[in-house]
């Protein structure tokens, strides 16, 4: 009985399978373009039709990473800035999110429903709206173009996601475990540090990864709030397009350098990333 309908839809399902692989290969095109261009000489990169067979050179990567003259900041410095801002905002975010998630997962905490909702609703707050006051305030206290002026807003805007990831992980720990430790005479601190914390490590890792990726990829805050000292890599690559046209080789090498770490991590832990970005709703 099941064979008949299945047979009839087979050609259709082959067609859609083909369609999907065409789409997937098609969507790899920009990545393929970026990687091949980053390995080409500038003259070869401009050739039309594109040269498919060429001798790969790492010259672009070397010049981008070690000899960035002519730009307001060397690309090596931009990468360093990105790393510093990403790490500090992620650490700040986790330190703030963990105790908050702990409180929000306690059934005895009367305001927890309301606070959870409110925190979730701040995810909808548009960054562009926060930028005007931050820009003016940071200008007044001479904090523009510093690491802090990026790290703190990044931490804030990643907080809702990270708190929700941690909260949903803590809520999954069976209540019996806590009760058992209570019976054994352990205090609350002992329970949190020896039992709850180790069980939340995977969620903390997910939170750290997501917060890092979102800070690393940000463009708007870095564009508005930094000029040169604390400028990050995604803003810096805009300078490869200048008065003399676009330096494709350097631009692509810089782009590959920016996306490589995120790409590798995302492919490895993609289920966690999807789960985290949906506030833990998708397991």
């Amino acid at each position, binding site marked *: 009985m099941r064979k008949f309908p299945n047979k009839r839809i087979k050609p259709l399902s082959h067609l859609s399978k083909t369609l999907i692989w065409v789409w997937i290969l098609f969507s790899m095109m920009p990545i393929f373009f970026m990687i091949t261009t980053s390995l080409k000489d500038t003259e070869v990169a401009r050739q039309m039709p594109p040269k498919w067979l060429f001798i790969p050179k790492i010259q672009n990567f070397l010049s981008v990473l070690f000899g960035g003259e002519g730009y307001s900041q060397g690309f090596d410095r931009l990468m360093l800035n990105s790393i510093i801002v990403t790490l500090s905002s992620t650490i700040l975010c986790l330190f703030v999110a963990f105790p908050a998630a702990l409180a929000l997962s306690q059934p005895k905490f009367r305001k927890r429903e309301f606070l959870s909702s409110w925190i979730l609703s701040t995810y909808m707050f548009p960054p562009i709206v926060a930028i005007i006051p931050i820009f003016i305030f940071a200008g007044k206290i001479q904090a523009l173009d510093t690491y802090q002026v990026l790290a703190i807003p990044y931490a804030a805007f990643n907080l809702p996601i990270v708190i929700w990831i941690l909260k*949903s992980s803590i809520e999954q720990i069976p209540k019996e475990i806590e009760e058992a430790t209570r019976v054994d005479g352990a205090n609350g601190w002992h329970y949190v540090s020896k039992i709850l914390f180790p069980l939340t490590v995977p969620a903390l890792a997910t939170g750290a990864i997501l917060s890092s990726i979102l800070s690393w990829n940000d463009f708007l805050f870095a564009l508005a709030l930094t000029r040169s000292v604390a400028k990050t890599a995604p803003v810096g690559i805009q300078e490869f397009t200048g008065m003399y046209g676009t330096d494709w080789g350097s631009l692509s090498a810089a782009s590959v350098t920016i996306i490589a770490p995120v790409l590798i991590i995302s492919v490895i832990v993609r289920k966690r990333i999807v789960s985290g970005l949906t506030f833990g709703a998708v397991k």
Partner: protein
Amino acid sequence: MKNEMIDLVDASAASSLELARRNSEPTLPNNKKSRNGIYWVQMSPALIILLLMTIAPAIFLVRKSLTNDSLLNSNSNFVGLDNYQAILTDASLLNSARVTATFVGIVVLLEMVAGLFFAQLLHKKSRSNSVAGALLIIPFAVAPAVSAMVFRELLNPNYGWVNYFMGLVGLPDKIDWLGNSTTAWIALIGLDVWQWTPFVTLILIAGMSSLPAEPLEAAAVDGANSWQIFRHISFRLLAPFIGIALVLRTIQAFKTFDSFLILTGGGPGDSTSPINLEIYRVALQSFRVGYASAMAIILLITISVLTPILLRILRRATQNEEV
């Protein structure tokens, strides 16, 4: 939003009272009030940061929006609601509202439809599907600023690969993609669909692989074809996941900024200039803080009307999943 703000102020006042009480009394380990005090202490760093980055800016903007402040000169005058009045008759703001609404509507719809289609085909566990899943995450791991740069290069009228490939298959190959508003829109939508359809697909794949197998098998045994199964069973069971994807993509699409600035720069003319870009330009390029603040407040009000609706869908979906 307003009510929530007031509640929050009450709550924090209550918490400091509670803290004061806690300090004056000898605490008992199981005293309910003191326990809630501890929770407020644990919450406070997060609440302070979030208040500083959301409510405080909102209050600041409301005050600024009633002035004609500019960063270029120091005199600041109270102008009442003049800014708001000017905005409501400002053709460029009306245009940017239309751009934002059109963009959000089109990309979310396309991504949901494409995402559902791909997820339906890729959710069965097999080696080729897991390869596809790994490849799918790639576009959305690329920093939006980088992908916009790369798309701009690909669409270059002289050296771009897009025109080259279109020429290869016999299509017009001299298109100035970003020089014409229709093609600039296609480019923007194409970039967003390229970048975010995988996210929708992966959410829905996760949803589909968590569905119970029995109803689907029963329907198949009863002779339902795959469209009927999808329409009457999978789609219904998937509703929470579709809800999550829809809400998250709507929120993210509203925030889109990088691709507009880098790929089209809002142009040609202001045909692709959304509200975000408009606010950015008035505030940080013309430095008309008063006017930009009023624009930001109008955006905030619009979003706070949408927020409860989106939030309800999202909360219902997350709760369903937690059971």
